[in-house]
């Protein structure tokens, strides 16, 4: 494998053919030429350094250019519409099955508690955050699948941009919006309790430190790294039972949120690649184009006659 072959593969797979040929291939050709004609290890090292830096800078420009193209904007539009429809449907299902009829809610929560990981969804559903937490990453798959099927085979940068935006939304939703909803629910419940008591009993303030799910990203990270809490000054080594598992609980919440981000990226990638595979298969069936292997490179052959 020659120097720059990996860069060439990256450029060919992630940028449009036009930009790859016009911008990236000349950069790689310069890198290969300089490397070939360098005298000594130091000169070769500097040729590599300069060539790689130039490539990544040009590559970033190509990605941005592809992402801003009209086709990419249309792709993002289709993906956004599908994303909103799926999230809306999930939110509606959550309201219908979990927050309307008590009987239906009990059955759904019972079913969720039987299935190992879904019990966690059941917990989120009790406090109106199931869609905010799980719905957004889940919606990435149908959104990218639909957009790829609708807009056809486009440059990967549009799909990568859609995945990046979906991941940012998932991060914001699971790490800031959902915890804010949980905090709001807890405060509303306490207020209702205080009103129901009619001032006959003193109700202690809410301790949000003991509720990692109420905490936004920075607090969860801090909580996961914090030492055990000693809340009684007279007993400096004593840790109350309710505080003993708190850092572990924070770490588990942090792990779950990170897993949601990974899940969002994977769902987006699967939706995109699945859409591409289906689109290619349909194009093959229609005889629009075929692909052949040309010395390790996949070449698209247009039409029945094999015109490249």
């Amino acid at each position, binding site marked *: 494998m*020659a*120097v*720059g072959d990996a860069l*060439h593969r990256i450029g060919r797979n992630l940028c449009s053919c036009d*930009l790859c040929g*016009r*911008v*990236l*291939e*000349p*950069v*790689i*050709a*310069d890198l*290969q*030429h*300089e490397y*070939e004609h360098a005298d000594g290890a130091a000169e070769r090292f500097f040729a590599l350094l*300069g060539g790689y*830096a*130039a490539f990544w*800078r*040009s590559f970033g*420009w190509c990605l941005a250019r592809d992402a801003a193209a009209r086709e990419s904007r249309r792709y993002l539009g289709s993906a956004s519409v599908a994303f909103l429809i799926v999230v809306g449907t999930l939110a509606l299902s959550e309201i219908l099955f979990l927050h309307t009829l008590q009987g239906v809610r009990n059955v759904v929560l019972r079913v969720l508690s039987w299935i190992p990981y879904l019990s966690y969804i059941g917990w989120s559903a009790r406090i109106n955050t199931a869609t905010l937490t799980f719905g957004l990453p889940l919606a990435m798959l149908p959104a990218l699948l639909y957009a790829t099927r609708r807009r056809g085979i486009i440059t990967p940068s549009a799909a990568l941009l859609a995945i990046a935006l979906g991941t940012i939304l998932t991060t914001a939703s699971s790490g800031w919006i959902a915890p804010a909803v949980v905090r709001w629910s807890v405060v509303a419940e306490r207020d209702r309790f205080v009103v129901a008591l009619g001032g006959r009993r003193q109700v202690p303030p809410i301790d949000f430190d003991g509720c990692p799910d109420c905490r936004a990203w920075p607090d969860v990270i801090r909580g996961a790294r914090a030492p055990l809490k000693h809340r009684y000054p007279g007993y400096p080594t004593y840790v109350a039972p309710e505080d003993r598992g708190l850092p572990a609980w924070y770490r588990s919440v942090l792990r779950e949120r990170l897993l949601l981000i990974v899940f969002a990226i994977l769902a987006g990638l699967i939706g995109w690649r699945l859409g591409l595979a289906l689109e290619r298969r349909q194009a093959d069936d229609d005889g629009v184009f075929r692909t052949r292997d040309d010395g390790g490179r996949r070449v698209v052959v247009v039409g029945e006659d094999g015109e490249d």
Partner: protein
Amino acid sequence: MGVDSPLDLQNVRSIISDVSGHPRISRTERAILELLVSEGELFGLQLVERSRGVLKRGTVYVTLGRMQEKGFVESRTEPPAPGAIGLPRRLYRPTAYGVGVFRAWSRAARAIARLQPHEA
């Protein structure tokens, strides 16, 4: 550089007022065109070396690609040398349109410079 025809104030005014709807060239594009017009066909790296710091290696092909889109330059791959490995390098030369735009801008720039007040 080619022969410049003298510009009077009227010509400069018309260039300035029409410029919004006409091809514009940035400072970098002007530097590339200047090198290509004066030296003929060049590789991207040669442009970087001869520009004395005006052009950067990481952006020269981005600019050249944009200039190709605008029709200012055209390119061809170098003839394959025997035993050479890797991708062929690309040689750039200005189009007649690119040369025309560059000369028009140069004339306009010189005329505008002449209009500015000179200190004693």
